[in-house]
């Protein structure tokens, strides 16, 4: 195995597995392009079910990528979600990494 190939593999191992999961990737991408949104907004945008979305958000919150704020509108609970600074940086890093890997794989193929 050449040194260059080892470098390529290192890029792949640097991928954040928590974000790489498709459902969480959809949530992160949606929150990355806006400032904040409520739970209801994310449901149709990500195409996830209520339970799935809730579960993935909890995982992202535990990792410190998503900030969850609870408030009450009248008597109804209302959840506002937004990426933390860390979450934003991690997602940016993730797409840069992925782009680099895809570019490298494409150039190796040609």
């Amino acid at each position: 195995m050449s040194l260059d190939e080892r470098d390529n593999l290192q890029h792949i191992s640097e991928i954040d597995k928590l974000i790489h999961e498709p459902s969480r990737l959809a949530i992160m991408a949606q929150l990355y392009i806006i400032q904040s949104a409520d739970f209801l907004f994310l449901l149709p945008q990500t195409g996830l079910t209520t339970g799935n979305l809730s579960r993935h958000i909890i995982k992202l919150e535990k990792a410190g990528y998503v900030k969850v704020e609870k408030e009450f509108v009248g008597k109804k609970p209302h959840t506002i979600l937004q990426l933390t600074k860390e979450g934003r940086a991690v997602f940016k890093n993730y797409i840069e990494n992925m782009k680099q890997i895809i570019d490298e794989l494409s150039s190796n193929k040609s």
Partner: protein
Amino acid sequence: MTQEMNLKELERKAWTSYFDDGLLDITIGLFILAFGIGMTTRYTYLTALAWMVVFFFAAAKKSITLPRVGLVKFSPEREERIRNERTFFVVFFTITAFVGLGFFIALSTGIPRSLKTIVGGLALVAYELIFVIGLCCVAYWKQIRRFYVYGALILVAALAGLFLNVFGLHQFFVTAYQFITTGTVMILGGLVVLARFLKRYPKREGGVDVVG
């Protein structure tokens, strides 16, 4: 570059999901329809009340869109664009109101009949152009392309109106019928979009806020 474009496309989709409910089509359609109907009555100054459809828009947005799409605060760039859009429309409506007032005063004064016909004709053309420009601006700011089609429809109706003039119909009524037709088409188009929206975003009664 592609990645940046895809994120932009994702942001555009999130943005348009807020306005792909057909309510803007129905509201502007109602405005143009009310304007057209007002022109056919003896009390043409009632057309000035057409702006009251904004109350319908605000109420419909609150009761139809928000419970289905939820709340979102867009990116700082988008928020800046929203502020620019608001400023633009305030300026646009102020100019439109002053143009209308100018024509109203000009036509109310004791100017010769021949001059009155020219000023009246100019007012009708001015309002057709204002509607076309206004609809194209809505299409641009809201990034909803079908509003360009509505703008084009007014132009087509204006051209068709030239033929109707030949058959002896008064230009004033021809323009009123153009507005009634365009307004009706917009309302029907809006209703179709609204039906699609209601199907895509069913109202979720409680139980959607289950994080944590």
